[in-house]
């Protein structure tokens, strides 16, 4: 009863239609006719999408997390390393981390005095160290299976043979990220090309490609990858390619559907009637209008690929034992139930990453949906 009264009250209070505005406000509302700008640019589709995306705060936070993860992966050597970034030793200035890149690229050589040397034991006149003084493979035998502690320098603890967990996570993000991007990239590339061909040309091309897609869908991706790894050895590239080759079918279907929809639009007829060639129509007019949903699915695929890689590493089928990944750190926890830090931190990293990519995907999907636009 009271609710009804409230509603009525609201209606009444909102009644005055001929509201007299104060003079200043009404003047302020009139924008002076802007000077005609010759270089004025229209609002493109992507600027609208960006505007729409920004409204979803969670998705914006997720994209910052993704950016942060990318930065961590790119600068992993500067965040966790057993060499100083800058060092003055016996009167000479060195940049060992940079030097290491040069050596790996074959552009330089270590001075003999630094070969097979633990840099942390050297007496530097001055040095700038990365925040974590351990490389993921460094074995700290004095501090194995220790929990998170500031005193030992192992902020997130160590595993059974004394490898630093945080360093492992930082360097492992490289593997996860590259697996995610490369696998999803392969999947998008194959899926978009085949889907677009099927949708645009139709007929036997369509039937052929879609039957192939159906056959590919039948392969259980995870077991196929395990088989490949078992047969040809574990390499990060095999895993990326295997994930990419088994997950493109969804993209192909999605692209085909979109292309079928766009192909029947009048602007494609217009392009045909203007004499444009098939290839040009497909790449300039059809695909740009059909790719948005694939972009959304790519974001989810990155998450999926990261998860698959972590799962493989956890089972021990992942990359080589010497390479530390999130999954391999997590698998250390299997035999050590009391060492909670071995399970919690890598698990949390995987969780955060998957959630972030999924949120980005969802945000993109909403931003691309014209029905949700205001």
């Amino acid at each position: 009863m009271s609710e009804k009264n409230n509603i009525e009250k609201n209606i009444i209070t909102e009644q005055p239609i001929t509201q007299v505005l104060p003079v200043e406000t009404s003047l302020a509302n009139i924008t002076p006719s802007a000077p005609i700008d010759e270089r004025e640019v229209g609002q493109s589709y992507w600027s609208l999408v960006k505007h729409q995306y920004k409204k979803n705060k969670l998705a914006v936070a997720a994209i910052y997390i993704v950016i942060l993860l990318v930065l961590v992966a790119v600068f992993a050597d500067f965040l966790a390393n057993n060499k100083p970034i800058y060092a003055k030793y016996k009167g000479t200035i060195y940049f060992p981390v940079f030097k290491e890149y040069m050596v790996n690229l074959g552009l330089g050589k270590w001075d003999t005095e630094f070969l097979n040397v633990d840099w942390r034991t050297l007496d530097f006149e001055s040095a700038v160290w990365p925040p974590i003084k351990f490389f993921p493979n460094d074995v700290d035998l004095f501090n194995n299976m220790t929990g998170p502690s500031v005193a030992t320098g192992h902020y997130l603890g160590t595993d059974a043979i004394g490898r630093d967990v945080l360093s492992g996570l930082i360097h492992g993000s490289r593997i996860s990220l590259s697996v995610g991007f490369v696998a999803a990239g392969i999947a998008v590339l194959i899926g978009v090309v085949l889907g677009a061909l099927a949708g645009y040309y139709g007929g036997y091309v369509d039937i052929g490609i879609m039957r192939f897609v159906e056959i590919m869908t039948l392969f259980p991706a995870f077991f196929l990858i395990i088989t490949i790894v078992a047969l040809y050895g574990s390499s990060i590239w095999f895993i990326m390619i295997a994930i990419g080759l088994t997950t493109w079918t969804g993209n192909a279907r999605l692209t085909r559907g979109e292309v079928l929809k766009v192909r029947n639009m009048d602007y494609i007829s217009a392009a045909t009637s203007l004499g444009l060639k098939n290839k040009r129509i497909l790449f300039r007019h059809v695909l740009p209008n059909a790719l948005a949903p694939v972009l959304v699915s790519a974001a989810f695929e990155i998450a999926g690929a990261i998860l698959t890689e972590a799962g493989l590493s956890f089972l021990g089928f992942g990359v080589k034992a010497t390479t530390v990944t999130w999954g391999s750190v997590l698998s250390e926890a299997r035999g050590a139930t009391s060492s909670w830090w071995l399970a919690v931190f890598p698990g949390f990293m995987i969780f955060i990453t998957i959630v972030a990519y999924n949120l980005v995907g969802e945000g993109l999907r909403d931003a691309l949906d014209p029905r949700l636009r205001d």
Partner: protein
Amino acid sequence: MPEVLLDVKNLKKYFPIKRGLFSKTIGHVKAVDDVTFTINKGETLGLVGESGCGKTTIGRALLRLIEPTDGTVIFEGKDVTKMNANDLKVIRKQMQIIFQDPYSSLNPRMTVGGMITEILKYHKISEGEKAEKRVYDLLELVGLSRLHARRYPHEFSGGQRQRIGIARALSVEPKFIVCDEPVSALDVSIQSQIINLLQDLQSELGLTYLFISHDLSVVEHISDRVCVMYLGQIVETADVKELYASTKHPYSQALLSAVPVPDPKLKKKRIILTGDVPSPANVPSGCYFHPRCPKIIKGECETIPPVLAPLNQTTHYVKCLLYPESYPVKKEVAA
């Protein structure tokens, strides 16, 4: 004798109906069924008929946006239906189309200037600064500002989009434009603007139009001659004044009786047709219109298919057994 620009003979478009596992063709939708007409240089031919009678299919088949099943389309002495890809590219500069839906006829990812420049470059009409100037000229020709060149289609109203569509069609300097219901999706106030624009452009550039519409008053206003279509066939063709003054075919009569007259005192007799339009997949025998015809000649219309024939040697063609000219060749001769 006026110069014939476009000569369409026995144009047919049958869409197959496919069913089953092996996509067996079990029938055809006769969207355009043996249509013959000509368009003279500089004139506007109106094409009217109710929804689904094949007007749009004709328009698109002329440009080979839909491959016609049979028939010939002679444009300036050359058969469009038999052209290969290269000849078609050349001829498509001469024939253009304006679409009904201004919201789906512009690529949403390209700026207005971008889409016109692409065509200018592709057909090597002009490039660089010349192309830019040409875009501005085209936009101003259709009543838009040059500032609009950098905008995207979604930033325009329906009427403005239709103008962009017209500018795009004009970019290749065509001689002939198919106007496929160019005003049906617009407000009445905008309709008149676009109609006037089309007429101005016609007199300025000497264009020839095929004006497809279901709006009879619009067609009356813009056309020189009118074809009335029913179920994929042309049932009557005449000069616009002749057709609106003395309508011959019962279907045309019924159609024209539906045109509102801006005179409240005038009591007009509406001819209300009964029944639905038969499916073009399963057309009636004899005259296609006989199941709904108020003037049916029992025993004849059901069996004898009429032919489109001129009345008294005039340019008024009609396809109805009420007129003796329309009888097909006598049976004796055929046998």
